[in-house]
């Protein structure tokens, strides 16, 4: 039960496109099919969530989509360019411009302050230090951490750290933001912080692909894809909700 877009190349509005993507490790008896034939189209401005049990390959898929790794087979198109056959150098350049990654473990540099962490992708892309710093401060403001700029990650809460990581992912105005279990290490309140942020991003038109365990994050998506054993098994469209009969949810007769 997968999406019924055309099975040829990417469409005009597809920011991210995967066709028959496979990722294998090992050989023979030790062969592991982490991703086993996945087709996916993500349109501009869409939020897509991928859910599934541990080991189902969703993180691997995300790495393939985000130019962090290369597929064993299949094609991946990002912002209209085919990326599965690119060399490491070209992929690195891609990561600067078209992709922003958010990790479960935040992966902030411990010895850099929040604002220094956020400006790093811009510096790596060759922007001037002043421009990078300015953009960094803007982004921190956007995620609601304007006053936390000079703080080290150790002095920030989990939710704040992840928000800094999101700001970092937005640094070079990527075509798509990929998030791998963004709330995996967060408690309930911090999860809500990140939820709000994703919601804001969604409303601002940012394309977002999220891999998650958390139903709350998944529920913010336009489409929710279930993955098991390396392939997609289900898809739910969640758009078009209104503020329905909330009372009935708690037994208020209505």
């Amino acid at each position, binding site marked *: 039960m997968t999406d019924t877009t055309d099975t040829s190349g990417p469409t005009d509005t597809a920011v991210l496109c995967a066709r028959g993507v496979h990722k294998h490790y090992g050989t023979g008896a030790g062969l592991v099919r982490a991703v086993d034939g996945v087709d996916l189209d993500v349109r501009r401005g869409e939020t897509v969530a991928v859910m599934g049990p541990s080991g189902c390959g969703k993180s691997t898929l995300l790495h393939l989509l985000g130019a*962090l790794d290369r597929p064993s087979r299949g094609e991946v198109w990002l912002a209209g360019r085919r990326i599965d056959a690119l060399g490491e150098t070209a992929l*690195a350049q891609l*990561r600067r411009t078209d992709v922003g990654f958010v990790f479960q*473990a935040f992966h902030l540099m*411990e010895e850099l302050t929040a604002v220094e962490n956020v400006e790093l*992708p811009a*510096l*790596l892309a060759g922007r001037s230090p002043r421009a990078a710093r300015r953009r960094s401060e803007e982004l921190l403001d956007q995620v609601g951490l304007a006053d936390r700029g000079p703080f*080290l990650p150790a002095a920030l809460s989990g939710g704040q750290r992840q928000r800094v990581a999101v700001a970092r992912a937005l640094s*070079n105005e990527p075509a798509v933001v990929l998030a791998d279990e963004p709330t995996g290490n967060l408690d309930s309140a911090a999860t809500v912080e990140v939820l709000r942020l994703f919601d804001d991003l969604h409303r601002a038109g940012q394309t977002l692909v999220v891999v998650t365990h958390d139903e709350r994050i998944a529920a913010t998506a336009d489409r929710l894809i279930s993955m098991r054993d390396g392939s997609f098994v289900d898809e739910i469209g969640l758009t078009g909700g209104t503020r329905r009969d909330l009372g009935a949810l708690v037994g208020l007769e209505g």
Partner: protein
Amino acid sequence: MGRVLLVGRLAWRDLRRRRLEAALLLLATVAATTTLTLGLVLSDAASDPYEHTREATNGPDVVAMVSAHPRERPDHPEGAGAGPAGPVDIVVDEPADRAALDELAEEPEVIDHSGPFPAVAAEMQAGDLTSDVQAVGRDTAPAAVDQPQVVRGDWVADGGVVVEASFADALGVGVGDPVTLAGRSFDVVGIAVSAAAPPYPKSLCFAPMGCASGGTPEEVAGLPAGMLRDPGLVWLTTPDVQRLATDPLSLSYVMNIELTDPAGAAAFVEAHGVMSPEAPILATWDEIRVETTELAREARTILLAGAWLLGLLAVATVSVLVGSRMADQTRRVGLLKAVGGTPRLVAAVLLAEYLLVALAAAVVGLVVGSLTAPLLTDSGPGLLGSAGTPSITVPTAAIVVAVALAVAGVGTFVPAVRAARITTVDALADTARAPRRTGWLIAVSARLPVPLLLALRIAARRPRRAVLTMVSLAITISGLYVALVLATFLDDTATLAGGIEDARTEQLNQVLLVVVVIVLTMAAVNAIFVTWATVLDNRHASALARALGATPRQVSTAVASAQVLPAFAGALIGAFPGGFALFHAINAITGGDSDRVSLPPIWQLLALVAATVLVVVSLTAVPARLGGRRSVTAALQAEMA
């Protein structure tokens, strides 16, 4: 007792787990201990041949010499640069006091003597080479004290000359070759060795005008006229010597004395050595031995200086090793504390590992050093037999062990204490090694191109390591500076009188080369290892940088540069102030004469620095490159564990 065993066992197990590092540690310390051992035992090794020769030739306990007193000569009209006048053309004021020698022979401590033998200074020509010689007249019958051992050919005969073995080797003469002495022809009838005088180019001087040995060309040019330069020793029959002397009054006399107690030689000289121009000059066998083994002592200086440098380098290596493994150690410390270990126990376990390695290194160094010492002290043809394997005395062993322990101790002391003091909770949580933050460096690096940006930040995370790299390179380059100075000096003084090559400089050059090679090898091993440690330390940061858009080449360049920059700074320090300071320090300690040497020119130093940078770049490129090849996702996930 149980605790000591426990400490030992924990230490041993951990070493076995981390074999590569233990091996590296061992290697670094062994380099220092071996060189140190060599330095300490070399002169002992070199003494053997002299002892052997003394026995075989029944060498004298004291040599007594008298010479004629020359009249003061006016300055040579052509000036000092024209070279000395012929040695036989001197004007005698007072003849040698032969009677004084006979009196000495009557002393109660003297049980036997040979001589007095006449001796004359002359110029000898053999083929293209010319040299000053001291010719001693001997009987054909063997003497009771000091009968030189003939190694080729026969003993003296009329018309024949027996040449001292080292001298013969330097001149390149063999039995049967014709030579000219003071214009007369002779044939070489034999080659012999003796313990009564040090081998060529050293000598016991019994010429009236005195002798000079060695010296740079400038010094040689300034010698007074008539002085012998690097005289060789030859033996003729007594009549032949008397014929050689144009003026019989200019003859010198030499007598070899055997005492009842050889150990009393110094006291004998004290009692009878009178400081007046006519009195006999006395030399003990020990003084001769010291002259003979001078080469070994010079080599020893080089080796000891080298051992110091290697010791310092080893400390730097140990520090880096210990520092990079501290994260691992911290967790162990936490576990030990959690099960009840006191801070003292914990520090003991940490130190024990390194001390074990240091002890092993001391043992290896002692064994290897004493076995290879004979190879470095070739006594040459002038003595019988070759250097033997010296025995390790307790003081030597104690020094080497102490140095090895010091190296291990200094390198590990600070981290061990710090680790021992850390609270258990922190240790288990492994927060001990959070990278350092240097705010201004981070700000500065933002302005640089990407590889330098990353390089500077990598270096800033572990400033101690960058400093250690710089210090290691400074030490190495300082050492090379001094080696350069020494090599130049040896070259300058390699040629003796008459254009003869001094075989000893060859040997010293060899020793110098050995030390330089060891130092360079250790520095290279250090560079590779530190780069690898940096790569490992920065796996996460590198992977993250790549995930954020840095190319693999940028990352590997950064990791290599993080090494190269401190290395460059260290090389500069070593080449300019460092080497100069080291040289003067060594001079001050060994009492050498720094005016005699010329310091390396600027271009040589710059070339040295440039070469160093190139070498470091190539050495660090490989580990840096290998580190950059890993998959980004694997590295990031590994760090999440």
